[in-house]
């Protein structure tokens, strides 16, 4: 078995969730690594869009910010931010949105706003950014997050962006026509919504991870799907490309 870290397994599993013909709204950090890994391996024609307005960008190193010059220089075109949010996101032209967060609940609602009460937060987080509308305007949502009791919580301190709300048809009842979160990829497993209840259930466990470990790092009773697969280990090629991407990125960011 190849030697790899849990975060590498997470990034590789997330990259595999993307297809060559996807049009994807990319967030900074883990989503950006996963999307570019997909582009450099099995999905060379994937369209990556960053909220700075860069359409169909092909960065050689990962951007530190959402609007690094690298993104603009390698893009098909760059539009203004109002155009980005109006024509492209709100206009329904983006198939997949990629989100992360500080907290998630079992219906894949996300909190990136505060830990503790809004008026007297214990930790003031950066806030929603594009997420509230990405969550409802993209055709579907992929979420990438490392698991832990403080991040996988029974009740969010604040709902920054919705997933499946309170389950069942509650999302559709709000008038939202898009699918919402279809996959949650963590350092331990891949989760997907139950077709009826919409609660996120474990559909694939990463090699070497136990069901107990998943429960220990989740703040609600974990449900498993009827069929639970084992996630295939990262291939040598996936690991090589990912590590080379990170190495290139670190060199570039240290030099700038």
């Amino acid at each position, binding site marked *: 078995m190849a030697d790899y870290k849990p975060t590498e397994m997470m990034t590789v599993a997330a990259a595999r969730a993307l297809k060559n013909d996807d049009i994807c709204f990319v967030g900074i950090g883990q989503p950006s690594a996963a999307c570019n890994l997909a582009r450099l391996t099995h999905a060379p024609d994937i369209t990556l869009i960053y909220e700075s307005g*860069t359409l169909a960008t092909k960065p050689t190193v990962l951007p530190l910010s959402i609007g690094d010059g690298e993104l603009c220089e390698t893009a098909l075109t760059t539009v*203004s931010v109002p155009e980005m949010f109006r024509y492209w996101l709100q206009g329904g032209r983006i198939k997949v949105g990629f989100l992360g967060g500080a907290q998630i609940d079992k219906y894949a609602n996300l909190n990136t706003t505060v830990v503790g009460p*809004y008026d007297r937060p214990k930790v*003031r987080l950066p*806030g*929603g*950014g594009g997420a509230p509308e990405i969550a409802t305007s993209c055709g579907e949502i992929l979420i990438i997050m490392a698991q832990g009791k403080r991040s996988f919580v029974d009740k969010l301190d604040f709902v920054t962006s919705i997933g499946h709300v309170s389950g069942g048809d509650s999302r559709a009842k709000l008038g939202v026509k898009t699918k919402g979160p279809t996959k949650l990829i963590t350092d331990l497993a891949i989760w997907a919504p139950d077709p009826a209840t919409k609660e996120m259930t474990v559909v694939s466990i990463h090699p070497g991870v136990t069901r107990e470990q998943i429960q220990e790092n989740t703040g609600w009773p974990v449900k498993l799907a009827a069929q639970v697969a084992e996630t295939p280990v990262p291939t040598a090629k996936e690991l090589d490309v990912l590590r080379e991407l990170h190495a290139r990125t670190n060199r570039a960011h240290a030099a700038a």
Partner: protein
Amino acid sequence: MARITSLADAIAMAVHDGDTIALEGFTHLIPHAACHEIIRQGRKNLTLVRMTPDLVYDQMIGMGCVSKLVFSWGGNPGVGSLHRFRDAVENGWPHKLELEEHSHAAMANAYEAGASGLPCAIFRGYIGGDLPKVNAKIKRITCPFTGEELAAIPSHRPDVAVIHAQRADRAGNVMIEGVLGVQKEAVLASKRSVVTVEEIVDELPERSLNAVVLPHWTVGHVVEVPGGAFPSYAQGYYPRNNSFYKQWDDIAKDRDSFQAWMKTNVLDKGPDAFVQYARKHKAAAE
């Protein structure tokens, strides 16, 4: 009508205590030199509007210039927290900070509505989340034609917009290239504006027929400040200094180290401190 002037004069004339001001630039072309000048001139009780507060607002908040922040994402991109922003919200240091929090889509729409002379922005957003519970300015409006419920917020109409651009000509026509953000909208939505540029040229260079140009009669003060966006970047001039963005995490984490840095690098300096960043890359390119 554009007036070409010094940075100190432009800020003195355009930015007043108690103003609502928008320093814009979405990662690219963030007006750092102008931010430093506002701090040096000791402006107080400002309402700051900006999609991504970034280091500029972290500095202004930490230096006590700000009473209210209107924003949608308050982090250090790719690095983590804005510690001065957090200290103000979590501990009220140096004083309490009022928040009016939005999403990016809302902020972008509010600038566009402001530039369009409309009282409010209407868009499909804020569905199901908690932001409308903590921001009374987020309302719902029903489309009179389809019955669809949409989000509405007031348009942004700042007193002053402050932006950085690559070039202006001597008449004050301003040209912007690369990641455009909301700078054009911010200037057109505001009563007054200050535009710092990498260089003022006799004639704007050859450009695409659709290049973004703010005509001189839409711009207030134009100031040549080479390097004035550093550690943000100016496409075609110098790259984003990602290592400084990482260093800022340590500088700003602690109140004393923050104040010491601000004294050495802002209070005791002037706009010409930025020239080195422009010059360094010019030399590297030659």
